[in-house]
């Protein structure tokens, strides 16, 4: 039991380490990791989470990208969005998203927010950031109820004693 649990967690940790191939035209431009990009872009999208000490990318990786109730195509969209974000950064600045200055990254976000996929991806990313910040702490986000305290919100009782995955 314990071993299988460890194995599952190992696999989960492994997911965000998978590489994203960023293409420029037909040429492989650079290799980034999902985790590196997601860490940076989530902080760009909602810096309050980091300020409150909430690990939003860890929640995305451990809970969302492995959840039995989230469709595979939706998980793929999250991952593809990271790839497309980086490709757009390369098109505009000839650099991966994570290598850009803060102001340039904001320009890339503004640029993709004008596209249908980009708007949807930013919205979805923020929605999962809110889940991490404002869901029950048992899921690994909302550290010490910091998200709830920020909004003077008291979670409902009784609280869950195990995660629903």
């Amino acid at each position, binding site marked *: 039991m314990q071993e299988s649990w460890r194995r599952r967690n190992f696999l989960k940790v492994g997911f965000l380490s998978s590489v994203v191939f960023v293409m420029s035209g037909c040429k492989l431009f650079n290799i980034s990791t999902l985790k590196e990009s997601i860490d940076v872009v989530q902080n760009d999208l909602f810096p*309050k989470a980091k300020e409150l000490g909430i690990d939003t990318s860890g929640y995305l990786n451990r809970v969302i990208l492995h959840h039995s109730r989230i469709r595979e195509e939706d998980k793929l969209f999250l991952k593809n969005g990271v790839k497309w974000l980086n490709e757009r950064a390369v098109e505009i600045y000839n650099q991966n998203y994570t290598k850009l200055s803060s102001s340039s990254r904001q320009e890339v976000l503004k640029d993709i927010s004008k596209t249908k996929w980009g708007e949807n991806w930013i919205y979805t990313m923020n929605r999962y950031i809110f889940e991490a910040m*404002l869901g*029950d702490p048992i899921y690994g986000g909302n550290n010490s109820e910091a998200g709830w305290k920020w909004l003077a919100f008291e*979670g409902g009782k009784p609280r869950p004693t195990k995660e629903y995955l």
Partner: protein
Amino acid sequence: MYDVCIVGSGAGGSPIAYELSNAGFNVVVLEKGANYREEDFNKDELAVSRRDMFTPPLKEQYHIINEYDSSGEVTTYSGKESGWNFWNGSLVGGSSNLMSGYFHRMKPKDFKLLSTYGKIEGSNVVDWCISYDELEPYYDKVEKVVGVSGEVVEHKFQEPRSSANFPYPCLETNGVTKWFDKACKELAFDSMPTPRAVLSQNALGRNGCYYSNFCGSYGCSSGAKSSGRAALLQKCNAKVITDAFVYKLESKEGRVTKAHYYTKHKIKHTINAKIFVLSAQAIESSRLLLNSKSAEFPDGLANSSGALGKNLIFSAGGSGSGRFIFENLTKEQREELMQVGVFFNRSLQDWYEYEEAQKSYKGGTIDFLFEHQNIIPRASREMYDEDGNLLWGEKLAEKIHKRLTTSRVLTFEVFNDWLPTDKCSVGVAESAKDKWGIPVGVINLNSHPHDLKVGEHLAQKAVEVLEKMGAVEIEYSISSSPPPNLIAGGCRFGNDPKTSVLDKNCKAHDLENLYVTDASFMPTGGSVPYTWTIYANSFRVAEVIKSQLKE
């Protein structure tokens, strides 16, 4: 062999189980979902509201939806791909565990819409084959046995009652209800406390409400919410078999003989009983009968009339809201506004019938309630600025913080009749199968333009109240989109076996021992949520079944 086999354990099935098992009969209930007791429920927003833990995964169980627009054009959706979800609650007690429990009775004229208001072109409105007076004793019984709290306030459309008042006093309310009552008084509207299927005090062997702040959508951890599980199934000896998806009812010579079911691991089982009661929720009950074809019933069980699956209805209307902001309030009012846990519980029925251009119209009910406390959608709703631009970063954080900590939204819900039409019905899709290989239900959606007209009239009255109360950002949406938690019809009851599936006792005209007791029997739905009427009718039918078994 069991005396009674009930398919589905919600508001339609649980009163039958309670009454017949307490009368000494051997009753079995087959429920597709799992069993939860009070101690199993919690307020996990991610599990309940974001991951839909109480409804089946759409990749395994779904519907095909044909949506007709006003010109008759149809667009087809698969629930599996589109995410359009018509499931309500697969667990013992069904969606009655998850309801908010806004309980209103139907009114006498609701039982005779056609003869009172006349035919509306393009609709299939008929009078019910029973009257309000026949159902009233059972509405009363639900108040006492299942548990309804409230206070009777005289108003123009107060229905006749055999008990002077509710057996349980009103639940505690938020201070903002005073603003509401004052506004209504100034407008000469009759504010009434919303009756709730939630116990306000310990009673019936259950705990009273503990004001968790998370009622609708969530299971109740105290047992105060009057679910079919807490109020009835846990108070009787009926055997409940969970993980039992009934896919076929077998019949022979005018009698149902067996219910066949699958477990989630596709193990087949069979139940024999003298009487079968179907209460799987309106869409699923029609689907099961349509999927139970035989040589005797080639078009579906109990379908010699061809009426099976026809005249599906929802609740028409819509919802709206207004926001109260700190800038416009005194310190005391701010504190009242932000008081959480207690309920709002106010309704208006002043326009249950109204006149326009010297013509009488059937109107409806408006319930007022605070915006649901789920915090993730409340934060998510702030993701756009006033010009419709997507926000992120510091700007978004500032907006969320200000809106959620210095303002609160009061919402309203409009309930009016969804007129039955030829194009709103249930079928089955031979080519689309669920995880057990059984044809999924097809939902044909169509609404009558009259529904929108009435909903609009009611919504404008609700807006007047919000304006008078000093709310800002008032908005509403009356639409023809069907609320998936307010479904009825498909197995109409009536006196004529050629035009109805069930007789006045909700027994299939075609079969000696098959009853349908969820909302399927309803030819029209009244302008109220359906649960109280489903419970009451089920208690009524239980009397009939008891007599049949004693014969």
